């Protein structure tokens, strides 16, 4: 599989400048989108379509945070498998938060306090990823990688929780 960071010509970092990435995406689209090859030979048109599929996929994987985390960890040799579960402590915490969200939904109450709490938890976990994938050396090893992996597993739950909170409005 193509490495999405490589496809977009970016360093493998957790933090990205979304505007710059979008700019790069547009520049590459301009160079390889099939529409730019309408009057070219069929072999070039096919190639353009294939490359664009790869480019679009790379953009999708990097633009979205959870996908970016999964991509980085897989590239570092520690993929998060579908069956990966967070430790019981976090699962309890998630369940408790989810109940609170349900209550807020049924009462039609604003969930600002909940939102702040989830955001703070997310910030915490993200810092481990930020540190492991800071663009200096890749792949991270030892404890740095372990911490990043565990943070990635937790974020799977936490991002989903934040989506649910966002849907409350």
């Amino acid at each position, binding site marked *: 599989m193509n490495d999405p960071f490589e496809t977009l010509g970016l360093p493998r970092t957790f933090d990205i400048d979304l*505007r710059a990435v979008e700019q790069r995406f547009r520049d590459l689209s301009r160079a390889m989108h099939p529409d730019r090859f309408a009057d070219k030979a069929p072999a070039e048109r096919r190639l353009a379509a294939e490359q664009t599929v790869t480019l679009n996929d790379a953009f999708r994987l990097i633009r979205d945070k959870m996908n970016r985390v999964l991509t980085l960890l897989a590239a570092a040799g520690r993929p998060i498998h579908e069956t990966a579960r967070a430790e019981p402590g976090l699962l309890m915490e998630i369940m408790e938060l989810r109940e609170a969200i349900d209550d807020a939904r049924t009462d039609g109450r604003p969930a600002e306090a909940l939102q702040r709490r989830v955001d703070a938890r997310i910030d915490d976990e993200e810092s481990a990823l930020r540190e492991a994938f800071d663009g200096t050396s890749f792949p991270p090893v030892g404890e740095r990688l372990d911490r990043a992996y565990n943070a990635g597993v937790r974020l799977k739950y936490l991002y989903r929780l934040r989506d649910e909170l966002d849907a409350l409005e």
Partner: protein
Amino acid sequence: MGLLQIFDPSAKPTPVGIDLGTTNSLVAWVSDGAPTSVLDCDDDPIVPSVVAFLPDGQIIVGKEALAYLYTQPRETIVSVKRYMGRGFDDAETRRERGYQFAPAREGQANVVRFVVHGREVTPVEVSALILKELKRRAEDKLGSIAGAVITVPAYFDDAQRQATKDAARLAGLEVLRLVNEPTAAALAYGIGTNRTTGTYAVYDLGGGTFDITILSLDDGVFQVRSTGGDSQLGGDDMDRAVALHMLALAGQSEPFDQGVWRAAMLEARRVKHELTDKSESAFELELASSAAPKTFAKAITRSELDALILGVVERTGPACKRALKDAGIDGKSLDGVVLVGGSTRVPLVRSFVAKLFQQEPLTDIDPDQVVALGAAVQADILAGTQQHDALVVDVTPLSLGIETMGGIVEKILARNSTIPCARAQQFTTYADGQTGFDIHVLQGERELARDCRSLARFKLDGIKPQTAGAARLLVTFRVDENGMLTVAAKDEATGKEHSVEVKPSYGLTDEDVEKMLLESYEHAEEDLRARQLTERVVEAEQVIAATKKALAKDGDLLDEDERAELDGALAALERAVQARDSEGLRRRTESLDQASVPLAERRMNRAMREAMKGRSVDSVESEVAHARGVDSHVTEHTARREH
């Protein structure tokens, strides 16, 4: 307009853009860089999407067909677009008053069939008649035409898109691309008003469909961020609400006489149009009765109209909010809201949009023409004439998934994925000796298969019987530039392509369309063969020209042997063109294609390197804080599979 037009026989065929609308259709082309609609002899660009089938077999399309709405309402088809890609059992089919539908029959494709004077016609055939009329108009004006970009609602599903393509094929039109209506409108806006940057919403409320699209425009790239809508919502629904109200005032109750109902619908539309500028509009209903026809007359005020259609207008709200959220932007931060579609002339719609997006919408370009004009620009771009340096990057409106155990849908491609896109998924046999898979593909956002729109069943047969889990197939789901799905399967062990049989849930099969083509006398067999030869010659000439151009520019990328092979293949194809040998053309075109692969690859690499060099990605370390909305949104709920 001149009385006589003389065409230069050597003139290049013109690519056209077609807006195949629920109520009205238009065709446009680009003339000296400016998109222009084709006008009729009254200088009117609009062809009403109405087809009348007369008892003597005559078929009338457009303005002249409108007269038959009163005299033969069942055989005069309006708003056929609402039936495209729909089945006999769809709620929409059953809701419509005024037509006679043929009953569903076992073993027949699940499509709507109108009964007209004892024969059955499908929506695809009716749409093809409208397209033929547009084609005829364009040819009268432009001589020969070189394919068409046809617009579809962004929210059209796969079956609806396929039906549109089938209609074009029946009409003898080469489809350059299906383009989403709001995107086409944005293209016309961007080029027509010289707007070069910013994020815009396109609110497109037509006769029968509603789309909302959020897109950003940057240096000629029109990038769609999100889209949403309802392919069964539009001005027709307002007319229906008004017609029902008028008939109720007249003391009529269901079921209505067909003619009375059609007349009421037309009168309702007229009243709605009149209330755009006036505060009150008088109406008259002819109430046919067996005893004596009588007339009922009364008036409707603007505020009465508003109350009647409020429900319809409000139904557009949730899709707008979701599209904004998917794009990670709020209404007031948009640089503009563009109104498209005839229904956006209704004052209530305008005030609703202004309130929803917290800004006054833009109406600089005629909302009835803007989609066709944009389609013409895209056709011009795709024909390679390069009068405009614009690029459209669009998305798929609906999530695509497959049915898994227990009727649960597993998402494969999320909505708002940039197209073209593809995702591969591994399938393994779960029983000993299993020789096939049945993959049920659905479109929609809901979690249960029964709540999503069934798209097709793909059958993979002929797997060598082995123990469970031994056979592995890699199935690739691909959404192309037209927003349409293709499925390919490959045996992982052998790398061999595996055939996939497609059974569309709604719509005609390829064979159905083929049969319809053969049935129309214009496409008798010799005709087909002559056409095939012409098509192959045209294709070969295009490939030759493209290859020579590529060689002239980047010939240095090939070594001597590669160059010799390519030159040989070129010469062979040129000879086949001279000989007008159909089979030879097919083979030589293919050989040239093979021989041009190395050049294509190297040219592509060169182009990509240059694109990367163009601008450096600065400040990658700092995350733009306010972009969180866009950034965190598309989180997929199904974990990514390793493949």
